[in-house]
């Protein structure tokens, strides 16, 4: 091991107490210092922590933000989510490629720039957007993108690029000294719960005057259900955790927000961090936890310093730390765990793996996190928005909360709306609002289809526009992507399958292999080579993947395909070809021969392509 490497890595490991469970933080810090993690750095970290190098290599290669090979000094990650593609991300990509003289996936010969595609970075309402290192650059055009990299190239190595990348700050806390981001909140509609003005920490004071059991009862009476997607009753989850045996309990806030098209948690983190930390503190009190973790997705690293600052201020005010607000015996503090570019880490057991410094593989259930979660301790994982509802419920009462929304879906829901509509952004609306109403608000009246709940949700057509957004009808973790006239449902399905292939952890067979097979057949139909039997093939395959997969990712990843089969069947059928004179339409002889022709340097006599 070279002395330099040792010098860089030793102190990093030391600062985390050589704790193997902090491997993700250690690797992020090492990468920050060295600019990348190569084999020698992997060896050095493994030696320092006295763990197998294959385990370190396994973690490095799992997270897209950790680079197993040395990347350029500045990695430009252009978002390839659908709203970005619809707003011209491919043209932006072509501009970047032309300016830098490299293709996506490559690094410039001088080692300064790398171009990569990224799964949704949470900026769908200001697409196309890219991350330049940690810095978000939204609303790109091919022209601005080219000018930007041309200017960056002129900078001497080590120059402060932030000034160039961010010309104007966004609204609200985006302009705060510790954020300085060009990101816009686009908060179009503040509702009564999350974005209403409220007295700070009134909920917390009131909660600490109650018993933990009373707090849980209030949350149950409000019928609060999880906002992260699954809609599990929050009070019930807390009761399980509180009832579980163990010397310690943990509260984890899920701010991974990886579902493509979702960005409402970003706006909450920007504008309501105190409300979130207040909610986490109340949750900690309710379940009997002393430690809270905010799992912040790597894409939102630009918010980290600000959030740390808010936490520090809360510690100073006695809102965190020993005896919170003077309550004897109630100690609670929060640390931020950074993610590193893996959608699967939003799944609660994968999120726990990630917090433990492991590959982001989900865990087998049982045991459930409420029984044995983070480091084996009973753990409650809750979404950002869910936790923000809690102080308001305690402050204003469960009756008030339950009076908003519908009977089984109480309260408001923050929706992230993007795509073919005129007023993209965040809308906080009562649950039970119809899709048609939402489309009218956001200027998406001429939609031909709407993706509700991200790729794992449903793609619905106009016949569903009178349905309600709530847990029991059109459920959504928050994302609505609007597709206007001319958009192709099959293209949507193909793009979403590409997302799932990229984001599957690869642990179990059906999801690792099945998603690839689903996309292959969707693409064949898209290319006009589908046969009538392909539709049954797709449905059977989709069913197998959903039934056999180990976690929520694979159990829902075939949904884009099933949505198209269920709701847009004519769009598929119009493309199918009957086999002609016994020839299989799906078989592309020219493509099959292409490689042989290339290798032999000869052309086929019969099938000259």
């Amino acid at each position: 091991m070279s002395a330099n490497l040792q010098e860089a890595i030793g102190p990093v490991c030391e600062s985390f107490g050589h704790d193997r469970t902090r491997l993700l933080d250690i690797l992020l810090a090492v990468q920050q210092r060295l600019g990348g993690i190569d084999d020698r750095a992997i060896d050095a970290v493994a030696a320092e922590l006295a763990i197998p190098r294959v385990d370190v290599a396994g973690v490095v290669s799992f997270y897209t933000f950790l680079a197993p090979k040395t990347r350029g000094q500045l990695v430009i990650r252009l978002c390839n989510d659908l709203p970005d593609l619809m707003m011209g991300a491919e043209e932006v990509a072509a501009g970047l490629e032309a300016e830098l003289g490299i293709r996506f996936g490559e690094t410039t010969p001088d080692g300064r720039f790398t171009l990569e595609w990224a799964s949704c970075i949470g900026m769908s309402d200001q697409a196309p957007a890219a991350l330049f290192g940690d810095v978000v650059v939204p609303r790109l055009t091919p022209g601005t993108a080219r000018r930007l990299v041309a200017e960056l190239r002129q900078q001497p190595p080590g120059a402060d690029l932030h000034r160039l990348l961010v010309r104007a700050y966004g609204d609200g806390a985006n302009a705060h000294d510790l954020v300085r981001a060009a990101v816009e909140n686009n908060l179009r509609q503040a509702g009564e719960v999350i974005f209403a003005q409220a007295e700070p920490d009134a909920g917390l004071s009131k909660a600490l005057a109650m018993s933990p059991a009373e707090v849980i009862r209030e949350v149950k009476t409000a019928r609060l259900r999880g906002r992260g997607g699954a809609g599990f009753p929050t009070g019930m989850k807390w009761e399980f955790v509180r009832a579980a045996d163990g010397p310690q309990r943990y509260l984890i806030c899920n701010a991974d927000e990886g579902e493509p098209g979702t960005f409402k948690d970003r706006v909450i983190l920007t504008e309501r961090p105190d409300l979130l930390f207040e909610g986490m503190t109340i949750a900690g009190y309710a379940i009997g936890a002393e430690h809270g973790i905010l799992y912040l997705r790597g894409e939102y690293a630009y918010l980290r310093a600000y959030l740390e600052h808010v936490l520090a201020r809360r510690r100073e005010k006695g809102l965190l730390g020993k005896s919170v607000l003077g309550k004897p015996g109630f100690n609670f503090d929060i640390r931020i765990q950074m993610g590193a570019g893996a959608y699967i880490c939003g799944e609660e057991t994968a999120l726990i793996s990630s917090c433990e410094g492991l590959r982001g593989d989900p865990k087998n259930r049982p045991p459930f996190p409420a029984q044995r979660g983070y480091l084996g301790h009973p753990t409650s994982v809750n979404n950002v928005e869910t936790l923000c509802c809690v102080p308001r419920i305690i402050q204003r009462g469960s009756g008030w909360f339950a009076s908003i929304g519908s009977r089984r879906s109480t309260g408001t829901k923050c929706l992230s709306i993007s795509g073919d509509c005129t007023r993209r952004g965040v809308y906080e609306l009562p649950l039970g609002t119809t899709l048609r109403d939402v489309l009218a608000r956001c200027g998406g009246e001429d939609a031909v289809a709407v993706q509700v709940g991200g790729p794992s949700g449903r793609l619905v057509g106009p016949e569903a526009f009178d349905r309600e957004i709530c847990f029991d009808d059109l459920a959504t973790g928050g994302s609505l992507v609007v597709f206007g006239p001319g958009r192709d449902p099959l293209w949507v399905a193909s793009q979403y399958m590409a997302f799932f292939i990229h984001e599957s952890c690869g642990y179990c067979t059906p999801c690792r292999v099945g998603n690839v097979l689903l996309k292959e057949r969707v693409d064949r139909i898209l290319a006009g080579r589908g046969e009538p039997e392909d539709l049954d093939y797709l449905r059977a395959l989709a069913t197998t993947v959903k039934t056999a997969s180990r976690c929520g990712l694979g159990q829902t990843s075939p949904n884009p395909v099933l949505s198209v089969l269920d709701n847009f069947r004519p769009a598929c059928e119009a493309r199918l070809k009957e086999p002609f004179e016994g020839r299989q339409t799906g078989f592309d002889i020219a493509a099959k021969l292409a490689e042989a022709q290339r290798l032999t340097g000869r052309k086929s006599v019969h099938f000259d392509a």
Partner: protein
Amino acid sequence: MNTEAITFTIDGKKIEARRGDTILEAADRAGVYIPRLCWMKELLPAGVCRVCTVRVNGRPQAACTQPAAAGMVVENDTEELRQLRRDLIDMLFVEGNHFCMFCERSGNCELQALAYRFGITAPKYPFLFPRRSVDASHPDVLADGNRCIRCGRCVRASRALDGKSVFGFTGRGPQKRLAFNGPNLAATDVAAPDHAIAACPTGTLIVKRVGYKVPIGRRLYDHSPIGSEIEPPAPEK
């Protein structure tokens, strides 16, 4: 240890289990075969392959990880689940490069044996023909990545039974790959007698120089299908 007895049913048959048993363990003891691939008696179950998927009170669950509970109604040998398992086995074939006729493990391979048991002669999915690497660096052990189904048996066995950490995985999704605790296999402390090598259900991990010691025709699954070690012999027809 709590050894309280509980009962439940698999396909209508009453099964006795001890509290703490998984469905698969209880089924094995009762002579009911639930197909499996990533499971091994000596190792902690991992729920990787999903071939053991059963329905528990209607819900799909992996029998190797799901604890048995009193009164549960388990479906195992149904047409739906047989088809599901065929699909999963098909997926494992097309995901790798499996040329059984050239493979030393043929006849002893659990993947091949399952395919035979399920009557699969050719996979229905298109071959993906991935590029995988072969590591022949070690004097005694060969690793042919073309045949790896990522079941993790070697990973778990090396740690739990050999007290080593020779194997692991890198990458994710379809790019998930078998990896070694060093730049190649020769750089690790693997040895031919390791449990990890014997744990491999396919022809990925092979001990050198003993190939075909047992001739084709006299191998484990050449005469009776996989699972017959668990099931009572079928009545004479």
